[in-house]
């Protein structure tokens, strides 16, 4: 399945906090730490953008409780609960204020953490986050598709994307992937089933995070979280900036990695 992480300085460790043994992938010491929050399908493994960013940033990539690598916490039943576990993670690891980047469900998670305690973060990057009900269109229902079709919907040009096939294999799903997806989809169901993938109150609560500089990155062709939700996020977070990448779907990090990294580096300076 996924690409193996490179040897030099990358390792996976257990971090005991908030009542769970978080499995955390860490990059080599490369500068300012960057907390990476994965999406609703879990952490599939090594991405190329990690390597590009590593010289300037120390990546910290925890697996969410219940998504396979980190055991489930029984008491977590919504995204706010998960955010409160992660807030403890950041505090107890003495990481705040840290830069954060969240993808899809991980973006919603970062937003909830910022709402609960803006002091957790120095800067925040949300990549096509769920969490706000789009004014136009609907968030694609993970439970209405096979995982493979859901992934394909996220990357319109998946057939020509080498990283897509490295990450997600194919054409047959491996047992390893099936089990990881089962965990991830189960836990996503526990925390985001109804209403699906959004909180009606989030836009109002986000008004309080003006102190966290926020970059929103969206693909203009996102079939998973409609770009109209990007406008809503932009209006909800005072001072935030929305970058819409033309011709890109739900995964700019693998669809347009160079442009994506450029945006990140400029913003996180």
């Amino acid at each position, binding site marked *: 399945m996924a690409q193996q992480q490179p040897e030099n300085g990358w390792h996976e460790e257990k971090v005991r906090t908030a009542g769970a043994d978080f499995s955390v992938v860490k990059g080599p010491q490369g500068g300012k730490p960057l907390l990476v929050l994965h999406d609703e399908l879990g952490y599939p493994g090594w991405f190329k953008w990690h390597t590009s960013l590593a010289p300037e940033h120390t990546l910290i990539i925890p697996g969410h409780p219940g998504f396979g690598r980190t055991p489930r916490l029984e008491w977590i039943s919504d995204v706010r609960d998960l955010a409160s576990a992660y807030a403890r993670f950041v505090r107890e690891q003495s990481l705040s204020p840290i830069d954060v980047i969240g993808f899809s469900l991980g973006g919603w998670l970062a937003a909830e953490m910022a709402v609960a305690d803006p002091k957790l973060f120095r800067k925040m990057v949300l990549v096509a986050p769920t969490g706000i009900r789009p004014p136009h269109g609907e968030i694609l229902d993970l*439970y*209405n598709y*096979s995982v493979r079709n859901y992934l394909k919907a996220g990357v319109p040009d998946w057939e020509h994307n080498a990283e897509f096939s490295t990450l997600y294999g194919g054409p047959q799903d491996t*047992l390893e992937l099936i089990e990881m997806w089962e965990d991830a989809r*189960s836990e*996503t*169901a*526990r925390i985001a*089933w*109804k209403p699906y993938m959004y909180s009606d109150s989030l836009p109002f609560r986000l008004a309080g995070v003006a102190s966290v500089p926020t970059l929103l990155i969206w693909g203009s062709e996102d079939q998973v979280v409609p770009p109209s939700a990007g406008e809503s996020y932009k209006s909800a977070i005072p001072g935030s900036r929305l970058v819409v990448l033309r011709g890109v779907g739900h995964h700019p990090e693998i669809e347009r990695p160079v442009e994506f990294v450029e945006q990140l580096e400029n913003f996180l300076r």
Partner: protein
Amino acid sequence: MQIMYFSERPYVGIPEDEIIKRRSFFGMPNSFFDADRGSQLLNEYIDEKIYAEELGFDAVSLNEHHGTPFCMVGVMNVEASILARVTKKIKIVLLGNPLPVVGNPLRLAEELAMIDLISKGRLVSGWIRGTPCESIFNSAPAVYNRESFNEAHELILKAWTQPGPFRFEGKHFHYRFVDPWVLPLQKPHPQIWIPGIISPESVVWAAKRRYPYVALGTATEATAELWNLYSKVAAEEGYQAGSECFGFMQKVFVAETEEKAEELGRLDMFGGNWNNYGRPEWMSLPGYNSKETIRKFARGATLIPLSQVNEKTSIEDAKKAYYGNSFDNARKGGFLLVGTPKTIIPKLQRLIRTIRPGALGLCQNDGPIGREARLTSMRLLAEEVMPALRETAKEVGIVDSFECKPGSRPLPASGTPDPVIDRELLSAAG
């Protein structure tokens, strides 16, 4: 032995290719639903149940599915309520209410109590987890399916047996004032039967509570395995399991000639039948199955054998995959008995002798076979097949859950339970 009449009450009238090309009965757009036809069919199906009473069946069993022409009845309590009033003596067996998806189990307790009262104590309540498609339809997360099943079960039993008002604070259900005015006629409550297909967890759960377990058309070997498990758990609980603890649902279609029976019996495969009940992505909703079951699916030993059919598969190829040798295999495996009374009777007798069910459901063909043929099959079953089956049941000493309270038989002095199946017949069949 209780002999029950059962049918899925399919909606008949959608071109088969429309179902095949969508790779699923579930989720068929309801623009294909014709209300006049729906009205006619629902009435016909209710009339069939009334006819079943006239014919001398002991019980009618009902089920429900949602969002599918495979089974028109989304709310079987509506059907049960009508039958409660218009029939006189037949038992009304619900197999079953899908507890995790009903949303409001206290209301269900009220509905069932009313059905029991109106029928003057003829309700048998059965509870199921529901297929994953029912979870999709009702927006009930499959991850909490078993948990909410258990909690709804606890609430309904309390509502029926514990004097109110009281407060109920569960994980999934919260009630500040449980005090249903209308309570069941049968005391302490109607019998509860648990239908199932493959899940050993459900068998163990039923045995611990002394609820009869009804196997829905499982292969004889698999059924024997589940019932042996039931018997083992029963022994641990300190009782001897017997025929009163078991029910079996058998698909059967009878006609006046073998040729006609085969021709009409084949229609059971219409649309792919269960092979095409729901798309794999719906049937494999996360959290519904245990990790072990998922591994089995992944290795190909699966209830969803058709992942090779996808949106690009032609109708012709999909049909081949859905049909396969299903009809012949189903006949060979005994899942579907098709024939004249003369050829059907020995097969059913053998089944009864082997697994000794206290309740035997005869499940009518699910396909578009037409009203006259359905009624003929029912009549032949009642007039020619049933008397022979009753005789066999009597001969091998089968009692049902109304003659002998499940869980009331003491274990033999040795502590080792007596067999619940005929092992010799089973191994001869194997």
